[in-house]
């Protein structure tokens, strides 16, 4: 079953066509790697899929229902977008990991948060660490946990490993692979990283707002 079906998607800004009639079917549990030159429309396509922007024409069907029929906040909890250079909110790492509970009006489960921290090689002491003191790699790992604490159906990774060292990249890869394998989370990742492209299961090349091969 297709989790996402994109039909004739077009996105224009003024007279510039950024996404040019893209159609794509994505199955549940897929791990797709989007490549292409800078400015080719990869990030725009991901923002359209995550409902951060709306298409000029065309449609996105998610779990058999048009994206427009979902409440945007509910949709974004299911299709979660992770940024290349994330910001951490509030004052401490704890503030960030409690945020997903806060937006769902759920009681904070500290045990769960500590378990998830362990998945990215961070211990409980990080909870009280100031957001200004964490390194770039730690920031990305904490940010990804915000996306994954409540398992989404789809995770969109917009060059999340860019600028990370080998160890941090490996930790992020392990985390994403685990969610893809164990929870069938569909992964859509954008990358320019050679090793990630080599290891990619399925590559989609975006050039000039179009899919070159699907």
């Amino acid at each position, binding site marked *: 079953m297709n989790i996402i079906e994109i039909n004739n998607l077009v996105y224009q800004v003024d007279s510039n066509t950024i996404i040019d009639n893209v159609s794509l079917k994505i199955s549940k549990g897929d791990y797709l790697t989007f490549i292409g030159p800078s400015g080719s429309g990869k990030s725009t396509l991901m923002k359209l899929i*995550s*409902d*951060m*922007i*709306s298409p000029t024409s065309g449609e996105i069907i998610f779990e058999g229902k048009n994206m*427009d029929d979902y409440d*945007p*906040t*509910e949709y*974004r*909890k299911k299709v*979660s*977008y*992770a*940024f290349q250079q*994330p*910001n951490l*909110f509030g004052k401490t790492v704890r503030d960030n990991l409690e*945020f*997903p509970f*806060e*937006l*769902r009006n759920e009681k904070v489960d500290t045990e769960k948060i500590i378990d998830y921290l362990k998945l990215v090689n961070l211990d409980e002491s990080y909870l009280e660490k100031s957001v200004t003191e964490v390194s770039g790699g730690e920031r990305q790992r904490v*940010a990804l946990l*915000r*996306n994954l604490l409540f398992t989404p159906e789809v995770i969109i990774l917009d060059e999340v490993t860019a600028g990370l060292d080998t160890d941090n990249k490996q930790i992020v890869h392990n985390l994403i692979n685990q969610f893809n394998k164990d929870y069938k989370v569909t992964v859509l990742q954008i990358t320019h990283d050679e090793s990630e492209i080599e290891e990619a299961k399925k590559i989609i090349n975006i050039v000039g707002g179009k899919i070159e091969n699907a």
Partner: protein
Amino acid sequence: MHDTLSVSNSTLALGFVLVIVALVIGYKEKLGIDKDIIIGVVRAIIQLSVVGYVLKHIIKVNNLWLTLAFFVIIILNASYNAGKRGNGIPHAFEYSLLAIFVSTSVTLGTLIWTGSIQFIPQQVVTVTGMIASNTMVAIGLSFRNMKQTFTDHQQHVLEKLALGADVKLASLDILRGSIKSGMQPTIDSIKTLGLVSLPGMMSGLIFAGVDPEKAIKYQIMVTFMLLSATSIGSIVSCYLAYKEFFNKKKQLKMDLLS
């Protein structure tokens, strides 16, 4: 009591020399504000003369509807100016109007209800002007801060939206900061009351020969009044305006950010 108040037209004309000082400084330092100073001074003289003339008649007539009409004119004017400071925020005038109306009505109503002032033109009109002008400045500052912070922290907002946050939760820090920025000048000036500044109401009464102890009581009332007015104005306007930064699909309107 009024013997010491001796500003005549001729002494005012002599006082104009102070404006010339400002003009000379502006000219010598090439500040390019000569035109603004002249326009400002001319406008101030005309506006105050007209208001003085109108107030004299309103006080003399002492008519409820005329007093209320003046109340409405002050609020409309303040809302128009606060709205202009919205700098592209849609419906900034309407939101300012509602905020200034609520803040002025609540504050003025409380003052009348507690007996601090009476419903007579010379008290209602002057106090309305003080409340509305301070609320106008507070709303202007709140709007400016809101637009700037949405622009500077757009990725913060986008990240919260991307996690599934509603627009209010995604904007909460900006909302709090904007309300605070509207109230901050009032809070700062309160801290230095009497130490740095002897504000308008108190100075005016002392000028007119009123016992300073009595003048101080009025100033304390004005302090309470302005705190209430700026906080109500900032809160109402900010809670209405932040939603304008999002579309119906709860996406950030990028074209609104500078």
